[in-house]
């Protein structure tokens, strides 16, 4: 089925330029993904000699974390548990008016149009550092016992694709859900234990330097997360950070201060 839509798209030429919403009329097909619909728009814009709408995308199968913007004020649009590349036009109605805005956060400066710089997430992961592993050939799969429930929980957290929807949806622009997923997926496994408390201290310190807001347990991040990461992990982050802060002692051969 063909549908006629009106898009109000945030257009911003560069990081330093000021942006504004520009309205476009578009004919879409219900089988298109949202990004394919934007591809059609961009074909038309290019044909008219206009600048196409810039948006991030890569795998287009919902697993890379590249895509994402706000559709009518909801990160990744109205369908829960989905990135915009996996959101199909059949979820919209003929005649719909849609507002497309980039993620808005001080830590995610706009690069162009709907593209933001999520380098802050990379720096958070870098700050977490390494995990200690024995070098050499891969150990037997059953060499390190992991309880099934822990493995499942760790896998739930490890599903985070770092798209940034949690920060975008949060009224405080907090990165707590992302941070909690990254802290939890290693913290739940035996391989992540040696650096567990150091890691959470370093990652929280880095998050504080990146101008993310604080978590007020509102839960909008959980609702928009394409991977259904739960705010239960944020409580786990808080727990680990509390423990790491209380138990912290300086490195010293004499036993510390």
């Amino acid at each position, binding site marked *: 089925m063909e549908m006629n839509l009106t898009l109000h798209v*945030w257009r911003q030429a560069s990081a330093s330029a000021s942006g504004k*919403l520009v309205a476009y009329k578009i004919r879409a097909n219900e089988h298109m993904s949202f990004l394919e619909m934007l591809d059609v728009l961009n074909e038309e814009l290019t044909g008219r000699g206009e600048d196409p709408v810039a948006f991030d995308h890569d795998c287009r199968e919902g697993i890379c974390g590249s895509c994402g913007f*706000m559709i*009518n*004020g*909801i*990160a990744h649009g109205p369908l*829960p548990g989905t990135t915009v590349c996996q959101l199909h036009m059949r979820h919209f109605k003929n005649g719909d008016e849609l*507002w497309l*805005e980039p993620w*808005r*956060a*001080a*830590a995610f400066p706009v690069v162009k149009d709907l593209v933001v710089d999520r*380098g802050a997430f*990379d*720096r958070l992961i*870098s*700050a977490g550092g390494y995990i200690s592993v024995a070098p050499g050939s891969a150990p037997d799969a059953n060499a390190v016992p992991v309880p099934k429930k822990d493995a499942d929980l760790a896998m739930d957290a490890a599903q985070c694709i770092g798209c940034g929807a949690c920060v975008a*949806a949060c*009224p*405080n*622009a*907090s990165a*707590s859900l992302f941070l909690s997923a990254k802290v939890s997926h290693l913290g739940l496994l035996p391989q992540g234990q040696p650096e567990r408390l150091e890691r959470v*201290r370093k990652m*929280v*310190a*880095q*998050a*504080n*330097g*990146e*101008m*993310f*807001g*604080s*978590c*007020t*347990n*509102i*839960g*909008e991040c*959980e*609702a*928009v997360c394409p991977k259904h990461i739960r*705010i*239960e992990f*944020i*409580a*786990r*982050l*808080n*727990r*680990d*950070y*509390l423990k790491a*802060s209380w138990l*912290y002692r300086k490195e010293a051969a004499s036993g510390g201060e």
Partner: protein
Amino acid sequence: MSAVTTSLPVRSEDEAFLASPIGKKVVMAVTGAALFLFVIAHMLGNLQIFMGRDKLNAYAELLHHNPGALWTARIGLLICALLHVVTAIQLATLRSKARPVAYIKKGNAGSSYASRTMLMSGPIVLAFLIYHLLHFTFGSAHPDFRNDVYHNVVSGFQRVPVSIAYIVAMVLLGLHLNHGVWSMFQSLGVAHPRYTPALKKFAMAATAVIVAGNVSIPLSVLLGLVK
């Protein structure tokens, strides 16, 4: 992409903890819990108005009987309230810095009205608290203040606008607690599929009891049940 921030200000561990949003939320949770417990105790004490003038005045006398304990409690509550408010201001400042450009259109997925309006219900409850102290503790906002708590309450609430202000303030306090009482557990790291639904129900039930209990006093005076 710039490098990992290595030049974070050098702080002691305790300073770093209190400077982090998680540390600030711990302050909010602990002070909030103390204020929540006070609100319950305060309501239970005040409900003695339904047991008559002598009972309520005897309770007031009991509280004032030991000035040392009274002022310890008052100063403790004042410190909690100050920490709660100052930390809330710091978190609100961080919030506006973290999103300097607002969305033109912002939907709300999966969040409660109460959780989104903590920064509004909080200051209104604070304003009410100051009025409440001037009204019933210091008496400067009370037109006929005497050394008779029962009289002060009844004559205070017989003025309709005053009673309405109290009732509205209690509904807002209820909104604030409905989110806050569950939220403090989450901030302190207590969340579990087995406990979280029960904690949310506890927050809802505690809020309902507090609002109903506190509203019952001005309402009963307005309806002439207590005079």
